């Protein structure tokens, strides 16, 4: 028997791997929660390799960026001078707003004496395929990270924790097509729903209005004609899905398109976060929440 296995070791190994793959997929098909356990185990085993790969990535990309930075330095300098002039003008306007803001913030701080606890995590990996949009972070169960915890940046919403192991966690970006959560237009309070669509985002209004993202931005499609959506409107989370706190910025409306022959209007949204440049994120820790709190999109 051993001789036979030795003689046909390549075929046996190939057949064994093939059967293992079929078993994995059938397990996922029949019982997704068990498959999640397998995924998390594999991710835990793969963590040291991913961390090592991340180190080399950082080094290689660092060298590349420094080179590019030198090449573009002059061009950037000119652009920055123009920006400074514009910003100085803007600053005068903001100073008066800031005084008012600080007064309001004091009142808000009084109302929210115990804000949600956040922890910082470094991004150590990204999806290597073109279909999924996830990040791997270096904080996991030991740091208090649990499934479905919201992940944010100062700029806005990043995503949610898809799975967590002891030392690491996977963040599903809002641009991932599996992601969907409700939002609202901050000015008009029109309620919409947002879901990822590959490298882009899609917003679905409660009356089936849909917003798509377009690579560098987002596109809202099938928004009912009566909905009040204008250029510059801020799109924020509405806090109803049980994932994100209310009021986190998702993006701003770049342009609105209304065609006479169409039943719905459409709009493009510029996302608040540049998903290609994320190096670290904040995970909002919520101790009281059930780690397996279902997404409202899940059956």
């Amino acid at each position, binding site marked *: 028997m051993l001789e036979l296995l030795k003689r046909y070791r390549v075929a046996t190994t190939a057949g064994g*791997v093939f059967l293992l*793959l079929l078993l*994995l997929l059938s397990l996922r098909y029949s019982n997704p929660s068990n498959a999640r356990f397998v995924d998390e185990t594999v991710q835990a085993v793969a963590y040291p390799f991913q961390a090592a*790969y991340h180190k080399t990535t950082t080094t290689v990309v660092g060298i590349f960026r420094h080179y590019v930075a030198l090449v573009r330095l002059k061009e950037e300098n000119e652009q920055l001078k123009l920006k400074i002039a514009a910003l100085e003008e803007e600053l005068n306007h903001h100073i008066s707003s800031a005084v008012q803001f600080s007064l309001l913030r004091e009142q808000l701080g009084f109302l929210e004496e115990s804000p949600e606890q956040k922890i910082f995590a470094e991004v150590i990996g990204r999806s290597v395929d*073109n*279909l999924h949009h*996830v990040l791997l972070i270096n904080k996991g169960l030991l740091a208090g990270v649990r499934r479905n915890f919201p992940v944010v940046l100062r700029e806005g919403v990043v995503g949610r924790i898809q799975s967590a192991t002891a030392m690491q966690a996977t963040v599903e970006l809002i641009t991932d097509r599996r992601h969907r959560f409700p939002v609202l237009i901050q000015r008009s309070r029109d309620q919409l729903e947002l879901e990822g*669509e*590959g490298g882009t985002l899609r917003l679905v209004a409660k009356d089936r209005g849909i917003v798509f993202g377009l*690579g560098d931005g987002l596109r809202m499609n099938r928004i009912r004609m009566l909905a009040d959506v204008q250029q510059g409107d801020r799109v924020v989370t509405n806090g109803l899905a049980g994932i994100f706190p209310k009021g986190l910025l998702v993006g701003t409306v770049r342009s609105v398109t209304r065609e006479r022959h169409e039943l719905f209007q459409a709009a493009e949204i510029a996302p608040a976060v540049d998903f290609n440049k994320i190096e670290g994120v904040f995970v909002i820790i919520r101790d009281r929440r059930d780690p397996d709190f279902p997404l409202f999109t899940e059956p």
Partner: protein
Amino acid sequence: MNPLIYLVMGLTMLWLQVTLAGSLAIWGVAPNVLLLTVLLCGLRWQDRWQFVYAALAGMACDVFSHGMLGVYGLSFFLVSYAARLAGIAMYESNPLSLMVLVGGLSVLEGVLSTTLFNLLDASAPWWHWLLTAVLPAALYQAALTPLFLLAFERIERRWGLEVTSRGYGA
């Protein structure tokens, strides 16, 4: 063929995929160099270890893309079998025909993996993925084929490997 060659090649390609492939992305579409080597191994080497290499390369993609473990593993395995069938001697040293084959087989792999994703998750946007990710990536990989062919020829010369002649004219 020595499985060590596959191991070294696999680790190198995984490193390239993780570190550089993202920087090579055009309009958000990055090439999959692991898949490219799986296809070229199938087309040029006709070795049984290629199946193990394909499955493990696919599983590495699964782990590093955080999708559904086994989807890429199975689709890489199946597409390496298709590459083996398609690997006729007339294609081996002709970069243009090899590019067409790699492009076609990349699309086949994309169709397989997205179909599996769709089976496991009915909401997966099959057509959207096919048009925005699979087809552009297949074109990209086809365009990179001559470059990888040079690398393969160097490996073959360095290790004294002979491209297997079979099928056509054999």
